[in-house]
């Protein structure tokens, strides 16, 4: 695992619990979440239509798309409710010295 692929997102206190922030890197958009048991990351755009999930609602371990209420599991990326049917890509996250990093392949 090469170290370069870990990208710094920001400090841990930049995300409230049960919430998310959008993180843009190069030409890609990600969502980074703070859940009760830690931090998680997924693609930032819904798999149904090109809509930013940053405006969606985080509930328990799920992110609900703000456009048509498609629902994804944040930890696995699984599409749980239509009209979303394609899974969301997830990314590894680590916390080091109160800073959040995500591993982009």
């Amino acid at each position, binding site marked *: 695992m090469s170290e370069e692929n870990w990208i710094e997102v920001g400090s841990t206190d930049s995300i409230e619990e*049960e*919430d998310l922030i959008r993180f843009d890197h190069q030409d890609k958009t990600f969502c980074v979440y703070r859940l009760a048991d830690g931090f998680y990351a997924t693609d930032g755009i819904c798999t149904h*239509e090109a*809509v*930013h999930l940053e*405006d*969606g*609602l985080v509930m328990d371990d799920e992110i*609900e*798309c*703000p*456009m*048509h*209420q498609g629902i994804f599991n944040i930890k696995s990326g699984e599409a749980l409710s*239509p*009209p979303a049917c394609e899974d969301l890509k997830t990314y590894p996250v680590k916390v080091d010295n109160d800073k959040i990093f995500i591993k982009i392949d």
Partner: protein
Amino acid sequence: MKNNIIILGGGQAGIYAAREIRKNDSESNIKILGEENLLPYERPPLSKDFLLDKKNEEDLYFHSSHVLKNENIDFENISINKVDFENKKLVAKNDNVYSYDILLISTGSENKKLSLDNNLNNDIYYLRNLEEAKIIKEIVANKNKNKITIIGGGFIGLEIASSLSQLQKKVTVIEIGNQLMGRIIPKQIADLVQNTHIEQGNEIILNKQIDKITKKNGIYEILLNDNSLIETDFVIAGIGSNPSVKLFENTNLKLDNGIVTNQFCETSIKDVYAAGDVSNFYHPLYERYMRLESYQHAQNHGICAGKNIAGVKTEYTSIPWMWSDQFNLNLQLTGICDDYDEIIERGNEINNGVIYFFLKDKIIRGACGLGIAGKIGRDIRITSKLTEKNTIVDKQILSDQNQKLNKLIQK
């Protein structure tokens, strides 16, 4: 107990009910009878991404035939034209007879048709199903069909207007009322939507009725009640819909703006259930009957009917929610917006989104929002939750876009 369960109508409510029955009952026979020769599919893209060629037919199906086979759900393409509730039988056009122990009616709704006093009725196009969407798509692909008139400024008419405008067509929308999308949408939001259509080149005509349509050399002339004349190459009408209940009109089934059902999706006849667009159901939270035509409702109501049919007694308490996408705008409606004593506005310009909350006795009953893409989605979703829980809310937070609504949800 092993039952013969028949689902009449192979749309969204029907398929969700079928799968939910199977989840709870591995024994019974489940058969969906559908008059469209297609597995159940999503209708929302028909007026939007399907016309725009961003989605094709394969993208619309809820499930593949493989899923139905795996779950032992039978789908038969047949149109039923007689129902004998007393003997629990359905009769098809080809005289096939289907017997049931339990029946779910999910026949959806059908478009209201214009009635013209000349022989032009077949020249007016409507959009409800995939076949009609394909025909419209094919016609507008013809470069000579450039000027298109849409009669009716409701959701479906405006969505078609938005799609055809994006296909570089010259679109005119004629609406009989004094605002778009009926009175259920706050006028301010209807006006914002109207402005976007106009900015994008569509012509919107309000407060006008059609006196006459004539055809000359393949071109239609639409005469309005103020004597103005619109020339057009193609006419589409979206003037509302009725529940598909003709089949039941001379039976004992209780009808009133659709099939009357209680909170358990039960109709007035034992062992007969109804769900989706066709049902006028009792909502225990609002303590009244309502009929909805929305994606989320067809899904959730179908699931609820499925549970009850399988013997898992379940009340339907889902908060109504629907959306409409036009150009880059996303409109959402939750709860009910016609029974309130106070309106609170959140935001006033389209970029950050605008929401109107409808309150009664300090409790939010419903909300209507408009924003770019899904900008208002989270707040609308939170509103549904607050409505569901009858939460008394801090109005100052509701009206202040700088304060997150998440705070209002009680954990």
